[in-house]
């Protein structure tokens, strides 16, 4: 599903350059639940961004679902992100002016789905995360846990095969964090591929496999 070969990412600032990833190779199969761990600056986020097609590697090859990502245009990458990947961020990243319903609906709008399909899917997802009654509320009117559940619903809007979660429980209390983990595990059990970045060993232990990064390299 996710196939990274010898990925290098170098950030250049003026005359200085920083190697965030150094020859990372890894493969994540369909339906796997993988955690990525490592200290700050180890390259976890950079790796997630490359896997999520938010960034491109300086060198190396990345194939997502059998399709080489290198050489895709900005809009083609956007289409991949829209249909194949769902993002869950630590700080939720919901649109502040949009309601819970609109936030969940947005990826489908970008995909050009019909009004009826959108209505059915948003209803289904909001009911699944238990927030259908909160559909007209804006993010600022919701708790952190509720916001993350809305973000999860949004990530699933186009039914992507891969879910990328960057510290999904990092900003939540333990109860809300547990609720989110329970949903993630349910989704994995339903066949979805989940890649999660976390600092928390306890959370990482819930996944099938843990990939550890250090200084831009996979160490375990």
């Amino acid at each position, binding site marked *: 599903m996710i196939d990274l070969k010898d990925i290098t990412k170098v950030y250049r600032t003026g005359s200085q350059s920083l190697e965030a990833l150094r020859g990372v190779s890894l493969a994540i199969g369909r339906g796997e639940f993988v955690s990525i761990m490592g200290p700050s600056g180890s390259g976890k986020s950079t790796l997630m961004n490359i896997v999520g097609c938010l960034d491109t590697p300086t060198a190396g090859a990345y194939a997502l679902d059998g399709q080489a990502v290198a050489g895709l245009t*900005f809009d083609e990458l*956007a289409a991949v*992100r829209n249909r194949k990947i769902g993002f869950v961020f630590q700080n939720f990243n919901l*649109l502040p002016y949009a309601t819970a319903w609109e936030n969940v609906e*947005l990826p489908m709008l970008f995909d050009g789905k019909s*009004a009826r399909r959108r209505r059915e899917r948003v209803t289904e997802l909001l009911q699944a995360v238990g927030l259908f009654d909160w559909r007209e509320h804006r993010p600022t009117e919701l708790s952190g846990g509720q916001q993350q559940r809305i973000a999860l619903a949004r990530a699933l809007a*186009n039914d992507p095969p891969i879910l990328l979660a960057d510290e999904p429980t990092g900003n939540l209390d333990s109860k809300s964090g547990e609720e989110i983990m329970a949903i993630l595990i349910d989704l994995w059990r339903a066949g979805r591929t989940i890649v999660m970045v976390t600092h928390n060993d306890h959370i990482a232990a819930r996944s099938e496999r843990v990939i550890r990064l250090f200084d831009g390299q996979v160490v375990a």
Partner: protein
Amino acid sequence: MNLTLPRFFWNEYRKRRKRTSLITFALFWGTLSILLLMAFGQGMSTQARVSFSGFGETLIMVYGGQTSLPFEGLPKGRMIRLYPEDIDYLKERVPEILRIVPETYNQWPVSANGKEINRTVHGVTADFALLRTQVPQLGGRFIDADDDLQARKVAFIGWKVGNDLFGGKDPVGRTIVINRVPFTVVGVLQKKIQDSMYNGPDADQVYLPFRAFSQIDNQRFLDQIHMQPREASQSAFIEDRVKVLLGRKYRFDPQDRYATTFWNTIEDFKQGQAIFKGIEIFLALMGALTLLIGAVGVTNLMYAAAKERTKEIGVKLAIGARRRTIIGQFLLETLFVFTKGTFWGFVLSFNIVHLVRLAPINYDSFGIEGYLLRPVFSLRTFIVYMTVLGVLCFLSGIFPALRASRANPIESLRYE
């Protein structure tokens, strides 16, 4: 056309509209100021034209005078008088003259209804109405050709004369006594603004058929002759030709500037128009500069709005927004802001212009309000303004939109 995304963007815009209120207000204020500026400028120009036409637009007047140059053995200082027979003399010899009217006047007591006032009374023919914009009020008429031929004792009076003699009553059909001779009023002059005059405004004048006037006046010569050219462009030629012909008849040097005097309203009109055109251009320039400053302001605000939304753009890019979606949203929002700001600016300026136009003009005295109280809301100006502003707004929207669409999703997501 799929309107789902535009509808979504419209909803987003509505929720965020307080954030764009400054831009909307800038556009509203700019539209209001510029449309009013142009409306008042054009109104002044139009009123100048109206006041010119109040006196007579294509009119050449010639007066007798005193020679200042010796001519063919005759000394200088001779009085040159114009006489009624000069009318036919000039008409026959200058085919470029369309209409020609004699005029003689005198100060006489005019009485009616137990009141007596002193007014200038003029003897003229029917065409005077066309040359000097003498439009009668409803129910009346000007002196006609038969009145003159039969020397009828009828009079056409200015509205102030009517008011002075009859108060609020309609003077038409009533008798006024001029220099002890009774005349029937056949018409009252409609109110008009008039920036040029001789012997005071037309509102204060009394007009009689030329032959009837001659019967009660012992002055044999004319005070002036009015001529209207067939083409306004012929006025200078007519002036020269009339000088030559009168010089030949009354034996004076056509180059003698004091033997006859000419008042050419066509040339005055051209000069006046040039001045007001200059004012219009000046106002348009001011408007254009204001527009430019406004556009810079709007661009700045749009740029700031785009900057403020960096994170939002990052989120949208992350969940699959294409470049054209981001550009489209920014342009649509620019359109919403543009439409809202200019619409209310248009509505308010349109209403102000039409409210100001309701204000009465004091026709009894020649005042600046005659120029200021008749602004003109021009559709052409509005269309030009909207086009220019539309282009400027589009440009001020497209650059932040392009910048936003080219943003790196990662950096945008990190932006705080």
